[in-house]
């Protein structure tokens, strides 16, 4: 009996929607790690693992934001620019001698404003999300350039040491703070998506927004909230970058919006909405990070890394499309016999 129950729990785990693909790509991730470990034994050194995780962290954070947006059936192209904006605003304020934590608060407010604009343009004004966020992407980059008169900032100085330690250099239980921040963000956002009302609404909107509306869901409010979440994620990454380099760079986060799409999509989030889990985004971001790190270790130039990652994105989506195309056939064969399965439901 207990054995059967155990099997049931395992089965239930497998039945979480999207788990299948997460397992498939996890296998891919493990294979990649083994290959790189063979190519370079130092790949698994504790030092490199620390680096690797800190390389993955920002991609995972923006991946969480992008996954949220993608699950509602939209896209957020402003991510990279908001990262740059966050980096530049916080650094500029700190070089002007403002208390780092006040600067962080102001930075959050600015980034959230971009998220609200995105959400309103998409949900209230019904602009295509691609166009709306393309616009805010350009605007946010412009803001990143204008805050310090078209220059990168000077170093944020000693006053900001606490800030830099908090976001990057500090450790807690011998683990870098960046990794803790990422972990906490992931836990919060995963909880919202899987266990809270907002999460249910996000999936419902992505699956069928009209049905969601007719069920009483406030589409505008939820969509805006999702874009704000995405902006918050980007903001955190901007702060991490600022803390890392100790200065503001105008083109920080360049291209990150697409890395975020890549991490989400490799992790099984559907660009059509309604599908995907954040565990997948973790694996997706990890594959991205391992490839970057591993190829770098193996001495491959940036160009090769880009080509390989591009190919991986295409293959992972292609696999998904092929699996989905075959599905209806399987479904027909598996038509369960018509019977009342209430017992099964209770189990």
């Amino acid at each position, binding site marked *: 009996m207990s054995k059967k129950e155990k099997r049931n729990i395992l089965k239930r785990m497998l*039945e979480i929607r999207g788990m299948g693909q997460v397992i498939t790509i996890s296998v891919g991730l493990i294979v990649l790690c083994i290959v790189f470990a063979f190519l370079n034994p130092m790949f698994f050194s504790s030092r490199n693992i620390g680096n690797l995780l800190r390389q993955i962290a920002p991609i995972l954070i923006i991946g969480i934001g992008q996954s949220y947006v993608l699950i509602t059936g939209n896209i957020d192209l402003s991510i990279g620019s908001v990262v740059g904006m966050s980096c530049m605003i916080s650094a500029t304020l700190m070089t002007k001698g403002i208390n780092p934590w006040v600067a962080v608060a102001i930075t959050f407010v600015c980034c959230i404003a971009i998220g609200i604009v995105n959400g309103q343009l998409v949900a209230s004004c019904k602009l295509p999300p691609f166009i709306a966020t393309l616009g805010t992407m350009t605007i946010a980059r412009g803001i990143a350039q204008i805050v310090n008169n078209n220059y990168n900032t000077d170093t944020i100085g000693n006053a900001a040491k606490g800030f830099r330690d908090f976001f990057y250099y500090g450790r807690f239980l011998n683990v870098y703070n960046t990794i803790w921040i990422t972990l906490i963000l992931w836990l919060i956002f995963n909880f919202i998506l899987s266990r809270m009302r907002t999460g*249910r609404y996000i999936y419902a909107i992505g699956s069928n927004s009209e049905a969601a509306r007719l*069920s009483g869901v406030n589409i505008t409010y939820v969509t805006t909230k999702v874009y704000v979440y995405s902006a918050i994620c980007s903001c955190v990454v901007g702060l991490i970058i600022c803390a890392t380099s100790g200065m503001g760079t105008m083109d920080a986060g360049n291209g990150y919006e697409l890395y975020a799409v890549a991490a989400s999509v490799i992790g099984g989030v559907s660009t059509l909405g309604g599908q995907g889990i954040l565990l997948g985004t973790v694996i997706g971001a990890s594959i991205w990070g391992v490839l970057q790190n591993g190829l770098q270790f193996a001495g491959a130039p940036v160009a090769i890394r880009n080509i390989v990652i591009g190919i991986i994105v295409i293959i992972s989506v292609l696999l998904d499309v092929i699996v989905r195309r075959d599905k209806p056939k399987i479904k027909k064969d598996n038509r369960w016999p018509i019977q009342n399965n*209430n017992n099964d439901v209770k189990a």
Partner: protein
Amino acid sequence: MSECIVEAKNINKSFPGVKALDDVSFNLKSGEVLALLGENGAGKSTLMKILSGIYSRDSGEIYFFGKSVSELSPKKAQAIGISMIHQELNLCPHLTVAENIFLNREITHLGIVSHNEMNIKAKEILNKLNIDISPETIVGDLTVSKQQMVEIAKALSLNAKILIMDEPTSALTSKEIDDLFRIINKLKSEGCGIIYISHRLDELQFVADRVTIMRDGKHIITTNFKDITMADIITYMVGREIKEKFPRIPSKRGKKILEVVNLNAGRLIRNINFELYEGEILGIAGLMGSGRTELTRTIFGANTKESGDIFLNGKLININKPFDAIKEGIVLVPEDRKKDGLCTKLSVRDNISLPNLDILCNSIGIVDRKKEKNIVNNAVKDLMIKLPNIDVEANKLSGGNQQKVVVSKWMARNFKVVMFDEPTRGIDVAAKVEIYNLMNELKRQGIGVLFVSSEMPEILGISDRILVMCDGRMTGELDIKDATQKKILEYATKFDNKIAVS
């Protein structure tokens, strides 16, 4: 006298579970207008789709111009000279009239499109029909009637000899209808055969030569138009046998619960007034496109209203979006379950709990999964939804079970008024009966039930009172004791008299 250009003999066509056409024969002569009449679901569209090659027939023979045609595809039908003018026009709104007429047959010289020549040729065709439209106009800028004429011109440029017109006058004004009839008469004189489908019986006298009436997929009668009266036409159209038994339960009508006063929203909701009582099933009958779905959606707040008031329990309520209606206790089971009712990629559990998350969540918005599971399991049990477990994706269920999921979404809530829009469309008999039983149970509990249906037998079998809509207006109200199919159809075809008697 004149030659038979279409002859269809013993056509049969079945869809899973329905016999759509049962041994139907009819013919069309050159230079005549044949009016094809019948209720919703009588098989008119199926027959026309077979003629134009969209559906294939199961058995039977079709002769065009005396020649038997076995396999028919849309392309082949076009080559033979059959052209169908649909209710929804099939033009590219951003292209010019000439470009539309010659779409896919552009006149080219060395691969370069000759707009000049196309415009000249298009003008010739339009002139022949006495249609005053410049071939260089963008189609999207034309009125609907002009677009329809472009469509006719396009059909003629394809040398169409057989024109099928599906409800061509529904969106036209009286002046435009005159123009259309003039063109129809011109086409007739040139030897075209026209099959004219319309529910507006009063218009037939201006165009029809013969009528063919269908019912339940069967051919009922074909006769010269002047040999038949309007009353006879309606008698032939109805008279559908009521085979199924409907589980009607008697109940005492309570107090007035919902009152709609002077509701207006676009062309399909015009000055609607009605009231609904507790413990009553109010049927709303009407033909397709008569505004029934729009009415339910407007009351629910899914469509915006232009004017009018809605009273619930005598209190004026303000509904701007579905959420407002749900909060007041008015819920809607929408018509198209795939489009409006279900998140098909999500599990049955997610679908059922979606509108109930306000009661399933604690104050900070965490879903109480135990409570959720209880609600979902109860709903599944109450409606006898057949599924392997509640986490199965909604689109893996059969149509009937999907419909039950859509219905059960609301059953966990307390509501006062429920609107069912075609709840039994496309589901099997057993599932239908379960839906009827559910409606009766709701009625017994004193809930006001609004029931939209195109199926006369079920609306007569289950409602306590029937409202009939036609073209966005309420044209009749019938107590169930006096309601007959014939009366309903009379009201349902009571169109505005657009044609001035000449």
